[in-house]
Each structure stands twice: as C-alpha cells, then as structure tokens.
C-alpha cells in the first residue's frame, strides 16, 4: 500500500531512472474504462472489416469481379451486424440502445458513429441481400457504392471514439490511431478476399492480395509511429497484456503480408495469409484496447502527460 503523497512509480525495473510522481495512495486519477473485452475489441475489428470489405465489394463490382464483389458485400453486411450486436451488448441498459439516435452530436464520436453505423449497416445489408437474391440489382449496386463511402469512415471513426477520452494511451495516440485502424481494416478485408477467392474459383486473388499487403504495411508503420510518439505512455503498449498482443501482432501481420505476396501462386499461401492477417488485426485491436485501462490505472501516466515529464528515452 502506497502512502499518501508518496513518491514512486511502477513496480518494474526501468532502464531509465523514473521521474518522481506523487499521488493519492497510488490510486488512479481517472476511472478505468467500463468498456470490456471481448466486446469492444471485437467491435473495432468487425467495424474495420465491414468498412473495408464494403469498399472491396464495390471496387470488385465496378471492375467486373463478381465473386470478390459478393464476398466483399456479404462480409460488409455480416460484420456490420455482428459489430452492432457487440456494441449493444456493451451498454449498461441495452434495451435503450435506440436512445443513441435521439440526437446527432458532432462533439460525440459515439453519436456520429451510431448514425454512421446505422447508415452503413442498412446500405451494406441491402447490397448483400440484392447480390445474394438477384432482386433489384441496380438498387443493390447503388447501395453497395454508397456503402463504399460510409465504409472507410466506419473503419476509422472508431479511432476517434477511443481517442476522444481522457485515457492517456488512447488520447495521446489520436494522430496515429486512425491510420493503424485503416491499415488493419484493409488487411482484414484483404484477408477475407484471399480466403474467399482461395476457397472459390481462385480467380481475382491478386487485388485481395494487394489490399492485404498494403494494409499490413500501413498497420505496421502506423503502429510503430504510434509507440514512438507516446513518451512514457508508450509503456502501456509494451507491458502487460497489451504488450503481449502488440508483440504478437508485430509478427503475425508481417508474416501474413509475406504469405499474401505468395498467394497468387499458392492456395495454401493465400489461406495462411488470411489466417495470419486476421490474427494480426485482432491482436492489434485487443492490444490497443488493453493499453487504455493500463494507462488509466497508474496515475503516473496521467501526471506525466500533463506535466510533460516524458522519460528522456
């Protein structure tokens, strides 16, 4: 038990001598986020997957790649539905989920996200339903094209959702987090495209593979940039459960990208890439999520960010 006003930091041995922090019995200054795993990270993953898949579906439809278009549209609709389910289950009063649409508030990323997700779910659902049933194909194509506009926003707004909080690991990462999520979403959708084409006729695997590689590269680069810019708070992405997840992603995502490069010649490589990239995207989301509570639990991160006591290295 720390004493009131006691000087000290975390329990870990540090290479750099820690700056001195005083606190109220070592208790958190912030409330720990009430959001929980697996709900929130699952939503982050599914929202990204849905958003990027909608774009993939529309691009495939425009370029005449039927199978890939269907894979994109169906994935976009299913992931939007699943993600919404996780969001509702996260509420303290799930039966009041419709209160989300009482108002439209630009200052609330959750309000904006609710409207965005509602529009995106409807559009991607209509596009998928039309594709599967063959009913009103023109309207289905129009809905699919519109979902390609809402999709990228659904994939990246969730970064603002996390960043617009007092939680140091999320707020201080607001510049890089949308790009981490964009890369991760691209890779996720590319992975589904790879799996779908590998299990199907095998045609049109190349654009899915290129999406996967581009997404993986962006995810890795943006994550690296994120940790570099955080000062002391970077610890929360490197230690504990968050650290395990981020380290796992650092291997899974590049390995998936390498497999995706070979996907054109090998069905096995395409399936391996799909698995590795999906695992990488999920672990990245879990890692980002877990860093939040870790940074709220120890008052030193709040104090350091506010007093600019950033560790020298």
């Amino acid at each position, binding site marked *: 038990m720390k004493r009131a006003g006691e000087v000290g930091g975390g329990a870990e041995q540090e290479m750099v001598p820690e700056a001195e922090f005083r606190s109220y019995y070592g208790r958190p200054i912030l409330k720990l*986020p009430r959001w929980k795993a697996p709900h929130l990270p699952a939503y982050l993953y599914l929202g990204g997957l849905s958003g990027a898949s909608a774009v993939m579906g529309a691009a495939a439809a425009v370029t005449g790649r039927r199978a890939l278009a269907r894979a994109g549209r169906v994935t976009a609709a299913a992931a939007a539905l699943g993600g919404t389910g996780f969001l509702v289950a996260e509420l*303290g009063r799930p039966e009041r989920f419709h209160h989300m649409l009482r108002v439209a508030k630009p*200052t609330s*990323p959750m309000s904006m996200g609710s409207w965005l997700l509602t529009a995106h779910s409807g559009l991607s659902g209509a596009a998928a339903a039309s594709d599967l049933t063959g009913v009103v194909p023109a309207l289905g194509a129009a809905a699919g094209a519109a979902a390609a506009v809402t999709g990228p926003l659904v994939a990246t707004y969730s970064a603002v959702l996390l960043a617009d909080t007092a939680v140091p690991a999320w707020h201080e990462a607001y510049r890089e987090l*949308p790009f981490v999520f964009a890369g991760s979403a691209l890779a996720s959708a590319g992975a589904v495209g790879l799996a779908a084409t590998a299990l199907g006729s095998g045609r049109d695997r190349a654009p899915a593979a*290129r999406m996967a590689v581009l997404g993986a590269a962006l995810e890795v680069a943006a994550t690296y940039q994120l940790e570099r810019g955080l000062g002391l708070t970077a610890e929360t992405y490197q230690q504990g459960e968050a650290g395990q997840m981020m380290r796992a992603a650092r291997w899974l995502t590049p390995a998936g990208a390498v497999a995706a490069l070979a996907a054109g010649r090998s069905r096995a490589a395409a399936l391996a890439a799909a698995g590795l990239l999906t695992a990488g995207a999920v672990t990245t989301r879990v890692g980002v999520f877990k860093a*939040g509570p870790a940074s709220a639990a120890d008052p030193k991160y709040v104090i350091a960010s506010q007093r600019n006591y950033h560790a020298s290295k």
Partner: protein
Amino acid sequence: MTNNRLYGPLSDVSGDAGYPGDHPERVGFFTDTSVCIGCKACEVACKEWNGLPDPVAGDLTLTGMSYDNTGALGANSWRHVAFIEDTVPAPAPADGGDLLSLVADADSDGDGDGGTTRWLMASDVCKHCTHAACLDVCPTGALVRTEFGTVIVQPDVCNGCAYCVSACPFGVIDRREDDGRAWKCTMCYDRLRGDLEPACAKACPTDSIQFGPLDELRAIAQTRLDELHQAGNTEARLYGEDPDDGVGGTGAFFLLLDEPEVYGLPPDPVVTTRDLPAMWRRAGAAAAVLAAGVAVAFAGRRS
C-alpha cells in the same frame, strides 16, 4: 474571434448551451481545504438528500488510507473526503500565529527525526467544468447543462454507454453496476430549483464548502489565498478557478495546500474535445488512405 465552444474561456456557459438571456447566474462550489476538518458531514448529507444507494456488503471494507474509507468519487459517492496523512520535514520555528503551526507541531510523530505528521483533508466533488467532456461525448443527450451552468445526467435518458466515464479528466462520473446508468453530483439541482443551497454546503460546519455565484466565489477565494500566502503558507494554491485552464475553469474549484496529485487530482487536466477537430481530420485522412489503398489494389489489369 473563435467562440470557444470546445476549449478556452467561456463567459456564459448556460447562454452557450441555448438558455435565453434571463437564465440564472452561474453557481458553483468553492472548497477551501485549509479549514476542512474531515468530518464527512458533506458525504452523509449528500447521500441522505440524494437517496444514494447503500453500499453493498463487500464495499464496506477498511482501505488503510488514513480515515478515508470512501476511496474515491463514484456513482454512489458524489462527495469524497480525502485524508492525506504523511511525514514531512518539520517546518521552520514558527513565530507567533504562523498558520503552519496549526497544521503541524514540530516532530509531532515523536520518532525524533524532526519529521512531522501532516494532515490534509479535502472534500472532492464533480467539477461542473466549463467545457465538460462528459457532456460533449454523451451520445444520447442524457448529460445536459442546466440553467445554473451545472452539468447533470438525466437518468431516464442515459443508456449506460459509459463514454462519459472514460472522458472525464477528473475520474468523477461512473456507471452503477446494478442499474447500468451513469451517475454523478447534480449540485443538488432540485434544491437549486427551490432556491436552496446544495446539501453538502449546507451541512459543512466550517464553511470549507461554500456555495454561491461563481464570480463571487472566485473573489472570496482570491482573498483567502492572499491571506494564507501572507501567513507564510506558500504551498497554498487555487485549483480549477482559472478560466484559461484546460477545461475553461471549473464550476467547483478548490484551495489546496499541496500539489493537486497529492489529493488524487490531475495536475493540468485538458478537456479531450479540445483536440476533436484534429481527430476528425486525421480520421478523414485515414479513411481517404483506406479508399485509395483499395483503388490501388484494384487498379491493375485483370489477371
């Protein structure tokens, strides 16, 4: 000029929230911790008046944190008296009525090292920020600004999304586990409507908690601070009274006798929404990169 809707000084918070010009003046709390005696009458009066739920059996534990067994503000504790009990170097010999001699006697812990036991007590409460992050991020409109310039939750609207919990830079608002909704101090909105002062201020026996129009309280606080400085207490400081701070000044502000973090308060809180325009721009740019990535991936000739 910018209208400071997200950040910076704001002279009329209720007007900015849309109340007509004849709304009541902004009220607040000035908590002068230098005269707090740690009696917890504020905590009790608050729980009584607001009918806050009894703690469940498992919560009735001793924390080992001096006389503080409340621990922190939360969904069911809207006032929280902090007790700081530690050893500090003995003050220089006091001449006559030095205020420090009231705070601590030299080597009062009796261990002969010249150190002295210091007691600080402070009653914490929701800050009713000028720029309230909880209110900004609330997606349902459950959190609103009142005509008095305070911030309250409408329990019939809140759907328990808990966004406010993560947004509050002071760790004040929390979700009640049994009913799933977010709760915090209302500055006794019902009493204000009836021209009564909030229960905590009413119950405070030493006037450590003072209630009134915010402008008057700021003047009172400045006078008190000058008094303490003249008496040699150089550690005395105001916390939250400055409209130029990161939350545009708070509706409930404090006179502290040490650094804010010693009391469990953030040293320099900033409303997260200050950076929201930049966040949306970054998210928009990232969305464009995502779309461009797909376009590039599909640009090649069909194999």
